[in-house]
């Protein structure tokens, strides 16, 4: 590149000197020789400004030679008749050298400024780009593509995985497919020092820059080019270093953000655990307190308590114990659901039977509340785990009973549409507050209007857990005319098994005549 530049400069010098000579030849009859000298000097200055010192000196030498040969008497010889012309030659040369040097320095300064500007611009682009990325992978991806684009070299980024082996995070594997370079990248990662072919390690063709922030090596940039010497260009070296630093900082930022996120997650988990503990201890202690109180009253003052009061105490013990039992049951179910230990044993079941069993089991709790069941007459057998699904129905009905006015019936309906069972439990309760639809299935969530009722907020999340485990969905919606509708959708998964039908009129009766 430099050679082509100087060839251009020398060609320019020849052209300008030739031009000056042509004009001088034209003017020589009407001018003093000193005027012609000025013309040549002008040419030298132009060359110096345009092409720098070398071409300027060349132009000066050429000018002196031509001026001497063509115009200084005796003409057409290099001999000089008067000594003063030697001074002229000296001045021309001095002017050429001085202006050439000055302009060359100016040019250099301008070029350096331009270069610095370009470098700053590209660093800025990179840093803007990196600032937009979140996560180490994205940062490395951006850095690698910027380096390739701006520096015109091949780049790849590697991370250490847990076992100390390298994984490619961005870019093409390129030189990392060769064993020595992989080892060099690993060393760079291990020691936090750049390692490359310039250190004379046999077989290494690239340059491996560790991305260090603080004391931690986060990743390694592996750079290569078809001609590795390109990488050693000081200008490029500096850019590579600047890019590496920027990328390392961005990686560190990601790591800190990730740490902060993890800490936040831990804080959230801790908060959830505290909420759970306080809920659990409240829901365990309340019935226990009632039981203990009633039992101790019966034990200590049994003789003095009237028969109806004794009866009431016994009822309290029994009811609170049942409440405790339900709560513990829910907790256990929740734990089983969350630990993933829940095994869904699907068999073909009649929904009518499962709903019936739920209602029978709920019997005393519903205390005479009307429940209307309308199941489509053509419901097929449904693949489900009856024990679990009975609980879904029970929890939904219990929920409806708890949160709706006793005067209105709870309505259960089911249809099959498009190979999906749709089971609905509807009530005429106060309905949900806006935005509650999503939260109501969350663990320990209790509706805004639930404060006055007992319960731990587990029933509906257990429903969702079980329905999820069945591959179905459960949603809640406002019911037209007031109240809520819970809808369970369950895929049917193929046709139910067929059974051999008995012949019509196949009666067991043995009529005696």
């Amino acid at each position: 590149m430099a050679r082509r530049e100087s060839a251009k400069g020398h060609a320019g010098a020849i052209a300008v000197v030739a031009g000056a000579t042509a004009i001088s030849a034209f003017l020589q009859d009407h001018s003093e020789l000193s005027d012609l000298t000025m013309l040549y000097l002008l040419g030298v200055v132009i060359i110096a400004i345009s092409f720098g010192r070398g071409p300027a000196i060349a132009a000066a030498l050429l000018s002196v030679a031509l001026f001497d040969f063509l115009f200084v008497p005796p003409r057409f010889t290099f001999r000089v008749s008067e000594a003063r012309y030697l001074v002229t030659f000296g001045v021309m040369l001095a002017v050429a050298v001085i202006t050439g040097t000055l302009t060359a320095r100016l040019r250099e300064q301008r070029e350096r400024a331009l270069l610095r500007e370009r470098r700053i611009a590209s660093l800025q682009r990179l840093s803007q780009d990196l600032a937009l990325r979140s996560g180490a992978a994205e940062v490395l991806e951006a850095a690698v593509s910027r380096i390739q684009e701006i520096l015109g070299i091949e780049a790849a980024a590697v991370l250490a995985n847990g076992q100390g082996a390298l994984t490619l995070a961005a870019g093409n594997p390129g030189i990392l497919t060769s064993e020595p370079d992989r080892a060099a990248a690993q060393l760079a990662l291990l020691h936090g020092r750049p390692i490359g072919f310039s250190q004379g390690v046999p077989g290494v063709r690239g340059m491996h820059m560790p991305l260090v922030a603080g004391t931690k090596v986060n990743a390694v940039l592996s750079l290569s080019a078809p001609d590795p010497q390109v990488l050693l260009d000081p200008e490029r070296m500096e850019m590579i270093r600047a890019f590496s630093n920027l990328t390392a900082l961005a990686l560190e930022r990601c790591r800190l953000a990730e740490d902060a996120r993890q800490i936040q997650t831990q804080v959230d988990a801790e908060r959830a655990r505290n909420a759970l503990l306080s809920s659990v201890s409240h829901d365990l202690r309340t019935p226990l307190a009632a039981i203990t109180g009633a039992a101790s009253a019966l034990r200590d003052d049994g003789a003095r308590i009237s028969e109806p009061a004794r009866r009431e105490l016994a009822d309290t013990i029994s009811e609170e114990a049942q409440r405790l039992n339900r709560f513990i049951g829910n907790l256990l179910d929740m734990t089983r659901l969350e630990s993933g230990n829940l095994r869904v044993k699907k068999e073909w079941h009649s929904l009518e039977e499962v709903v019936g069993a739920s209602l029978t089991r709920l019997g005393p709790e519903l205390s005479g509340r009307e429940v209307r069941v309308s199941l489509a007459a053509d419901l097929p057998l449904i693949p489900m785990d009856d024990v679990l699904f009975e609980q879904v129905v029970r929890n939904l009905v219990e929920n409806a009973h708890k949160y709706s006015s006793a005067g209105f019936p709870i309505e259960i309906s089911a249809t099959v549409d498009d190979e999906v069972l749709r089971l609905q439990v509807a009530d005429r309760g106060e309905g949900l507050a806006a935005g509650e639809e999503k939260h109501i299935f969350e663990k320990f969530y209790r509706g805004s209007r639930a404060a006055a009722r007992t319960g731990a907020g587990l029933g509906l999340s257990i429903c969702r857990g079980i329905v999820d485990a069945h591959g179905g969905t459960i949603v809640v919606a406002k019911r037209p005319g007031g109240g809520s509708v819970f809808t369970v959708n369950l895929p049917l998964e193929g046709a139910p098994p067929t059974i051999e039908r008995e012949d019509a009129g196949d009666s067991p009766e043995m009529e005696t005549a």
Partner: protein
Amino acid sequence: MASRVAKDPVNGSTAALVLVIEDELGIRRFLRTGLEGQGYRCIEAGTGGEGVTQAATRSPDVILLDLGLPDFDGLTVVRRIREWSGIPIIVLTARGQETDKIGALDAGADDYVTKPFSMPELLARMRVSLRHRSRSESEPEASVIEIGTLSIDLARRRVSIGGAVVPLTRIEYRLLITLARHAGRVLTHEFLLREVWGPSYTSQSHYLRVYMAQLRHKLEPDPGRPRLLMTETGVGYRMSESFNKTL
């Protein structure tokens, strides 16, 4: 009521003897108090081994067996006792242990109650078990089974409710009489499938579901909330001992 169950079903004179095999002291105490209050005599065992010994030496009339014993599991106790005796065994289990319940029933237990249970619930199970035992030991089966308003004439194979004949298919009838012969007792899916359809059908539980639904639609006033043919979810079915329906 107490006087009726207090009669020893075999001798008809002394109170029935109950063996409680349970390691939890609290439950033993509550059972003893409750049972003695109802006129039963009570003996206790804290381990399975002790329980098997007591069952052999004291010849109780009914055994209440906890499935979660410290030495060996309840199933083993059931099998050991069944090797030489048909004493009614009622298993006490925790919720969510449907597999254990089925296992115990298949091993020969008569019935189960789920903890926490109430005294009336347990007494009802014990009464049914004691009655079935006394029946199987005494006279041959009656020719008519009557459960409330439901009447099954075994000789004429005719089923009626409140005097009105209900036509049943052959399989519906077989299913109904199997349940009726064990009224009050839980029967596992497998048992019913084997009894009604035969041994090769024991895993075809959908047959049972379909026929159970058919029977309910013919016999129950509200098939969606049965009162005669009760579901024991995850385990089997139980025919209730009392039933009233007017057609």
